[in-house]
């Protein structure tokens, strides 16, 4: 769905379609997933705008941050390449805006089920019977280890009794 259409649903008196498009671009600049479509980013921005519509301090931070950013750029944020946008966002004068946006976008983006699917996280498993018969132990690239406790004593105090490789030896072996 085009960004400019979506924005009309979400408080057009507070955020213009251009505001929303800029926020979507910023959300992607903060958390770039190149193979992820705009849908989740747009939903995240709508959620944040909904929150700001009932939270004067957040509204203030977002509006102030957007205009400050536009004041320093020759282009609208939506037209600035993602990586360049990210460095503009981290300028000291954007600190409050950056923190608010970073926190909110991270919180909502990774709670979006399309993002879960994109990453490969299936969420709840209880109604499918858990993973008892669906691969809780299907990792096959390592040997199956012991699950029982080792009967050999572990000293409470002092060095390990076994002759352990040093970390440098372990690192060079792997």
């Amino acid at each position, binding site marked *: 769905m085009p960004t400019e259409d979506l924005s009309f649903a979400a408080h057009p008196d507070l955020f213009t379609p251009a505001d929303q498009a800029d926020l979507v671009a910023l959300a992607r600049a*903060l*958390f*770039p*997933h190149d193979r992820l479509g705009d849908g989740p980013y747009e939903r995240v921005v709508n959620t944040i705008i909904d929150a700001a519509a009932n939270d004067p301090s957040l509204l203030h931070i977002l509006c102030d941050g957007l205009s400050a950013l536009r004041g320093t750029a020759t282009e609208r944020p939506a037209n600035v390449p993602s*990586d360049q946008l*990210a460095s503009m966002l981290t300028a000291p004068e954007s600190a409050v805006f950056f923190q608010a946006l*970073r926190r909110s976008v*991270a*919180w909502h983006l*990774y*709670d979006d089920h399309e*993002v*879960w699917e994109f*990453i*490969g*996280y*299936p*969420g*709840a*498993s*209880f109604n499918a*019977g*858990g*993973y*008892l018969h*669906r*691969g*809780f*132990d*299907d*990792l096959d*690239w*390592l*040997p*199956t*280890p*012991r*699950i*029982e*406790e*080792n009967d*050999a004593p*572990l*000293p*409470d*105090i*002092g*060095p*390990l009794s*076994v*002759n*352990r*490789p040093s*970390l440098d030896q*372990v*690192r060079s*072996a*792997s």
Partner: protein
Amino acid sequence: MTSYALDDDEVAVIIGSGPGGATLALQLAQAGHRVVMLEAGPLIDNDEFVNDERIAFDQLTWKDPRRATGSWDLARDFPDSPAWMGKVVGGTATFWTGLTPRFKNHEFRARSTYGDLEGASLADWPIDPADLVDYYARAEKAMGTSHRHGRPPLPANNNYKVLANGAERIGYRHYATGPYATNRDPYDGRPGTLQDGFCQQGDKSRAKWSPLVSEIPKALKTGNMELRTSSRAVQITVGRDGRADGVVYADDGGALHRQRARVVAVAGNAIETPRLLLMSATARHPSGLANSSDQVGRNYMRHTTGVVYAEFERPVHMYRGEPMAGIVNDESRHDADRGFVGGYYIEMIAQGLPSFTTFMTPGGWGREFTSKVEAYTRTAGMWICGEDMPRSENRVTLSTDLVDDLGLPAPEVHCDDHPNDVAMRAHAYAQGDALFRAVGAVRTTTAPPMPSGHNLGTARMSRDPGAGVVNEFGQTHDVPNLFVSDGSVFTTSAAANPTLTIMALVLRQAEHIIDRARTGSI
């Protein structure tokens, strides 16, 4: 349903329904004593738990205002949320992970074993470890913990395969899938695990032990306990004779009630317990109830923790199966040659995507961050749980400006890491990195502590009334019929996850209370 009158002054009032409060309640009720249990949160049945990290967090968590101060990472990363604890019947254990190691003998003698560490208020426990052995066994049986008393080990899930193989390759030998308080096979009327993950969101299947599925229903069944939910204790009252005679609590609507009592036991977790004692100050107890030692709220400990995540080329799917059924004990010993005193456990941890992205790099963003998120299904995790140094100035106090919905002062939790904590964490991060790289990790990420599930030490146990709040039975030195029945009593933290030890201490406390009640001295 059993109910007791507010003016019944023969009841034992227990504040909090977590492992400490619920264990005490069951013992007293089975011995024929009347119990009124006050729980600040609601009763939520296992069927109502939601396997969604965000929804479950809202449903189960104590979210009243709090503030973290000090040099610890949490004051920066999660300043409003220094601890993660439950406000629900069953307490924090409704979403605990379930590892149940015992303390080692020398951990009860931390001061004698480690010496006088500058900047730490180390002390020896007033308990002989031998006195706890039987209670440990009873607590393990109550939970049906794996690897103990004939309970079978949990099988290896994917995340454990990574952890255990990595441990073996760097020379560790003491790894296993437990002891872990979740059923592999049916036990105590509860089923075996479905390996469905999500125990930190409340376990829907009831395979994981918590007071909600064991002590609480058993205590109710005796007919000697009344459970009052949405009942938040705000003050313990003291009579002219110097004994606790009641508890004032607020109901859901904020209206106050007062339950009279013969005995009062506080089990509100190491932040709310000292807060309640401090809020119960009177003219005769001007610095807080049971606080003549000035130790209430001090020596706050939360274990030295941190997380190491490791990314592999091949799939792990850490979210499948029991999230913490894996432990490596080799570093839990005390070996000062490592540059710190005390020890730590390496414990398996798995998180869903929302928690992973919240805790993997607090404040993280950008391409490196998102590349780690995209590797989620190829990621394994381990959690560090190590002995935390008690410090007198690490303490819970009443805020002078932040208040809760009732207008009562919110707790402020101040914590500065001791150099020992910093050294231990650095050692554990390096070991975790080596462990995972030994089995092919292509990238590792170290994460700072998450809001603390283990909260300890703020009503310290000591033989000397001038040096602590309670005696070896959790009985306050100042008020003879007032007890503390949670991790607040820990003199030192040890490295072990605390729930088992809380229960063992409370089983011992219960015998003491029942004995004293019989002789009429309580």
